[in-house]
């Protein structure tokens, strides 16, 4: 549990979360959500929870991002707010 690495990853986590909510283009929002998943996977792996990190990498940064992008392709691409 390295404190400096923790702080850096957490700062990026907050930045990606805020950007993913604020950006207008939904396709970019899904991709940034995938980046968020990857960062939290790194956080869990660094804390020693390797099973959880494995699952998050497979589901969050893999399959869930594909589902979101498939949905964005089939509905509208610009957020209305």
């Amino acid at each position, binding site marked *: *549990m390295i404190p400096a690495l923790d702080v850096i990853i957490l700062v990026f986590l907050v930045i990606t979360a805020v950007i993913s909510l604020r950006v207008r283009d939904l396709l970019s929002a899904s991709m940034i959500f995938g980046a968020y998943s990857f960062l939290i996977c790194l956080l869990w792996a660094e*804390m020693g929870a*390797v*099973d959880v*990190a*494995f*699952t998050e990498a*497979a*589901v969050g940064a*893999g*399959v869930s991002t*594909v*589902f979101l992008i*498939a*949905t964005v*392709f*089939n509905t509208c691409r610009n957020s209305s707010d």
Partner: protein
Amino acid sequence: MRIFGLLAVIITGALLLYATADLPTWGDPGSPANASPISQYYITQIETDTHVPNMVTAVLADYRSYDTMFETVVIFAAGIAIIGVLRGIPVTRKSLGSRGVQKDCIIQVTCRLLIPVIQVFALYVLAHGHHSPGGGFQGGVILGASFILLALSRDLDLALKRLSEKRFLILSASGILLYAGVGLTAELLGGNFLDYSILHKITLYDPIMARYWSMLWVEIGVAMTVCAIMFAIYANLSSRGSLKEGL
């Protein structure tokens, strides 16, 4: 109105940050997660009870296997719900083929080389879940993702020829049937539901190794369901329920 939302978020965030001051330090042996009697039982007794080195898999698939069974049922229900919702909506927008996405040669060849490797790795993660991180759910997701990669790099039709709708529905249902079947067999032999040690009567193992191998069977059941449902959700989401034309 949005200022109230912002205020609510700021107050909740401040309260949560204030509460983190009370959390135990990382790796503290006196924390409630480490020092409670049940954690001590798991940490000391899993190796003698089940011979499985990976404690996470042992707790998920043996001590708490009831919860894992219903997790698998929830995944199955989510897949069926997505199929049910998308199947009833008539496709009124323009055809997806007018998007003009070219099929690239480099991507196709690379994916064609990668997909068998990914599938073998998924089966390795499933089979080696007792000793390394992984297990049924992770292996199933990677296996489902390999089919999604096939559908993305080539055509949804090609992936559906490999894993047609009838096949993936049967696969997902039989995964849960396998899981519940192991539990029911344990109950029919006289033990409790999902009490694996009683299964040593019909296999050639002693009670401890019967738990070891039954964990592998239930993980295979979970992987079958998860793989089929991941591909089912992708196939229905990308073709808007019609399974005719993918992304």
